[in-house]
């Protein structure tokens, strides 16, 4: 609903009372989800205008140059609220929606990554949501034929009532085949095709712009239903139309439906539109005009077509046997005009719809005030033996293997991936011999304890993961999941996080090319307490690996090679997943340190270019233990730890998280060169030990069989989910 102030403004702008249809449209367009009215004002902080950026923030997908001919498309979006209500369909349509954002720009979708968060795995309802979300993603992605190649999952009690489902899609397009979401030329036709229009998803965006209330089960009607078969046909149709140069402009019908797609296309083109609502193919009887205008039925695309090309367009769409309709024309009025049963029911300036919203006042509080309670000193009670800690850590479902999930996702379709997801960032091999590396991550616990540094560390975590494959980072996308922006604590977390991410993008000159904001991820409990999610800025990073190089593997390649840890050992455990898992909700996470990050990154990439790395992996969330376990299990090789290491029984050594750290596997004979280069780059390193063919870890007098590590690491999630 529009508030009084908004309604008064609308009447003033129109010089009359709005029609019911206009009011419904404005309500959708001015919602937080579409207008970004609480967030847009901060986007100038991001580094955006890199020469490699072909199309930045603002349309369906960002486009980044990877070669003379090719661009990759990037999009990342949340489907949190729908997934909380109807997890299967919510997640499935999240996948469908983000794929359409990618195909809107003429791209072929080549990869999906998912970032999903739920309450503790011990809770029945969390497992239900988890199971259904995974099924929804699998069902849709597998059916459309886009591989799901990576992502992350986290369980924390802050997500019990507000699960998060963020999906990233990557596309590939030749420069000559890029399509823009612009209605440029008056006289062009609007052609709508894909699924028919029904009542599903009506008010989806306004629902996503509010707290989840107790009546959630009654809001199921706001959740759309996905149809991946139609989506695949859309891909086939669009590629045929586009190859024949028949599309002038294109946008998918997502949040806000027809209203949003058409008005945004016209706004970008400085044009207007005249739409005949009776021409829209409906799946339900007696839909009213306003319902048709804002329905969020899935799998619908709208294109603008030059009159002389209309016949060929129709022929191609008819051949593929999907519903379509010529629903109107681009005009020069700069107004959105819609007719229904020969009456004009909408005649409203595009400018009012797209940019007419009021920027609400939002309050922040001083950071030290926000963090006063959160940064209290940490008291840790040791759990006993280091092996006991190993077991607990590897069984933590936030750390343990995600095999149960990714074996349900088709990750080999399209034949661009090399292996299975798991040990590191995903790698895709593209048509032109280029290779890209992809990761998607967040460290919400650190963001909660310190939004600026936590968000910057989250971005670095994503970046380190692609650097460990030998890739140079080329672009970021972000999905900012936060609480109610009308509350100063949630809004302060939000603003500080943006600043943290922005700092990284400016320090490293990695442009942000797209993303999404999801606010209002909080609920009021029966005791009238606010319960909000940990602030969760999810970062997707993309890197490019030179044509003449093979990507680095993230697991041991040989026995008898040396293992080095580069970068400084953190001072303490604060901000680590190790402590979050012990319910310690205070502490100061490691400070973002661009210098240390940069030096380590440069050293690694130089060693990669000189081809003296056997393998590498980053040390991120979960610390050293997780990194070594992944490298060891994937290769079925053990480790002889260096006896002189004093820290072998210290939790900090195994579990702490801090900036600029990687594990490198090298031949012993290259040690001299490494010493020299690390001095040049001013990077500290520690020799951890040696890889061995025997399947165990020797830590001084301790021997751990890797079969035991495997059991701890692999079995927890399946044991919950297959019970």
């Amino acid at each position: 609903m529009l508030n009084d102030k908004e309604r008064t403004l609308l009447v003033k702008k129109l010089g009359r009372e709005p029609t019911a249809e206009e009011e419904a449209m404005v309500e959708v367009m001015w919602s937080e989800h579409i207008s970004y009215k609480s967030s847009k004002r901060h986007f100038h902080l991001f580094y955006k205008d890199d020469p490699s950026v072909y199309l930045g923030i603002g349309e369906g997908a960002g486009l980044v140059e990877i070669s003379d001919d090719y661009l990759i498309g990037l999009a990342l979006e949340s489907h949190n609220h729908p997934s909380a209500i109807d997890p299967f369909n919510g997640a499935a349509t999240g996948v469908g929606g983000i794929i359409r954002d990618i195909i809107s720009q003429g791209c072929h979708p080549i990869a999906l990554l998912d970032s999903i968060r739920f309450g503790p795995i011990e809770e029945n309802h969390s497992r239900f949501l988890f199971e259904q979300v995974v099924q929804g993603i699998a069902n849709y992605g597998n059916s459309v034929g886009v591989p799901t190649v990576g992502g992350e999952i986290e369980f924390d009690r802050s997500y019990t009532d507000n699960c998060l489902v963020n999906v990233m899609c990557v596309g590939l397009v030749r420069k000559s085949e890029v399509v823009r979401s612009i209605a440029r030329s008056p006289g062009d036709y609007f052609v709508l095709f894909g699924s028919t229009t029904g009542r599903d998803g009506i008010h989806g965006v306004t629902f996503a712009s509010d707290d989840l209330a107790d009546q959630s089960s009654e809001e199921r009607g706001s959740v759309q239903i996905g149809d991946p078969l139609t989506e695949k046909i859309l891909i086939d149709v669009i590629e045929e139309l586009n190859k024949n140069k028949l599309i002038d402009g294109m946008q998918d019908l997502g949040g806000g439906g027809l209203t949003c797609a058409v008005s945004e296309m016209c706004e970008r083109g400085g044009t207007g539109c005249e739409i005949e609502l009776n021409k829209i193919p409906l799946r339900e009887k007696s839909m009213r005009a306003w319902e048709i205008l804002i329905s969020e039925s899935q799998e619908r695309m709208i294109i603008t077509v030059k009159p002389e090309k209309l016949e060929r367009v129709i022929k191609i769409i008819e051949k593929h046997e999907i519903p379509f309709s010529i629903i109107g024309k681009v005009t020069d009025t700069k107004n959105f005009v819609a007719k229904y049963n020969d009456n004009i029911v909408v005649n409203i300036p595009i400018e009012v719809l797209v940019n007419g919203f009021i920027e609400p006042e939002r309050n922040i509080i001083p950071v030290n005030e926000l963090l006063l309670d959160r940064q209290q000193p940490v008291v840790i009670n040791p759990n006993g033996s280091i092996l006991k800690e190993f077991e607990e850590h590897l069984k933590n479902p936030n750390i343990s293997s995600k095999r149960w999930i990714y074996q349900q996702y088709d990750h080999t379709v399209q034949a661009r991936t090399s292996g299975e997801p798991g040990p590191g960032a995903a790698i895709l091999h593209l048509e032109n011999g280029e290779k890209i590396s992809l990761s998607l991550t967040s460290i919400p616990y650190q963001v909660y304890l310190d939004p600026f540094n936590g968000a910057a560390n989250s971005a670095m975590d994503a970046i380190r993961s692609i650097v460990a494959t030998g890739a140079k980072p080329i672009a970021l996308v972000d999905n900012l999941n936060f609480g109610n922006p009308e509350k100063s604590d949630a809004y302060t977390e939000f603003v500080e996080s943006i600043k943290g991410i922005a700092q990284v993008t400016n320090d490293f000159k990695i442009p942000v090319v797209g993303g999404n904001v999801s606010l209002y991820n909080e609920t009021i409990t029966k005791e009238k307490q606010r319960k909000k999610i940990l602030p969760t800025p999810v970062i997707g990073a993309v890197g490019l690996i030179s044509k003449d190089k093979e990507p680095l593997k993230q697991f041991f390649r040989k026995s008898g090679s040396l293992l080095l840890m580069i970068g400084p050992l953190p001072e303490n455990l604060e901000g680590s997943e190790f402590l979050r898992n012990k319910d310690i909700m205070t502490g100061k996470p490691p400070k973002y340190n661009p210098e240390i990050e940069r030096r380590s990154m440069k050293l690694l990439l130089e060693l990669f270019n000189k081809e003296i790395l056997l393998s590498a992996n980053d040390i991120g969330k979960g610390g050293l233990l997780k990194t070594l376990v992944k490298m060891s299990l994937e290769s079925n090789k053990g480790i002889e730890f260096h006896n002189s290491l004093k820290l072998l029984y210290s939790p900090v050594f195994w579990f702490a998280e801090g900036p600029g750290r990687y594990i490198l596997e090298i031949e012993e004979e290259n040690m001299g060169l490494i010493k020299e280069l690390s001095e040049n780059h001013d990077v500290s390193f520690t020799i951890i030990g040696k890889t061995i063919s025997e399947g165990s870890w020797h830590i001084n007098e301790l021997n751990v069989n890797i079969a035991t590590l495997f059991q701890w690491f692999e079995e927890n999630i399946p044991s919950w989910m297959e019970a």
Partner: protein
Amino acid sequence: MVKAMVKIGVLRYPGTNNEIETIKALRSMNAEAILIPHFEAEKIYEMDGIYIAGGFSYGDYLRPGAVVKTTETADKLKEHVSAGKPVLGVCNGFQILVELNLLPGALVKNTSTRFISKWVNTKIVAKKGFLSNLFSEILYLPIAHYSGRFYIDDEGLNRIITNKQVVLQYSNNKGEISSESNPNGSISNIAGVTNEKGNVVGMMPHPERSYQSFHRSNHGGKIIQAFLEEAKC
């Protein structure tokens, strides 16, 4: 030696989604690969061989592969087969061939009732048909399916064994065939079968995802090569 390139038609129904990489793989092995959408069924007549690509044709409505029976491609495929020309059906392509009764058995839901996407070892056991030159090779290949469990009744199983129609079985990396190496509950670990004549092969693993140097294995390339050799004859 100048020789006309072998022409392979890659079928695409609405919902098929492996056609692009299949065409790419065939072209990399010097075949002339031609996309045949369901509305251009007559093109089947011009082909030396047909590769039915995987995916979810018609959204798996009714049963995987079932709706294809009602399309124009069904009769044309049967004519192609009667003429002795080869057909390779992968994943949904295998399901389609079974539904068209061009291959024996049925493909039902995995015993886990989950989609399974992973790399598995398989063993070529073909004693007839175009895979028999690869007999006893162990191939490491990706599977990705929800309904990949091969089923046939006892009588049928005896018949296809007697007729040497089993061509591919799930195994371990030594080629031993046991229940531990059975990913989806297929009867007798069967991953692929052929028809009595040996010119139609269906399999659940995806050779077109396993032929380049960067793939986890390039063993799938051998299967595609064997198919192309047959199509050249």
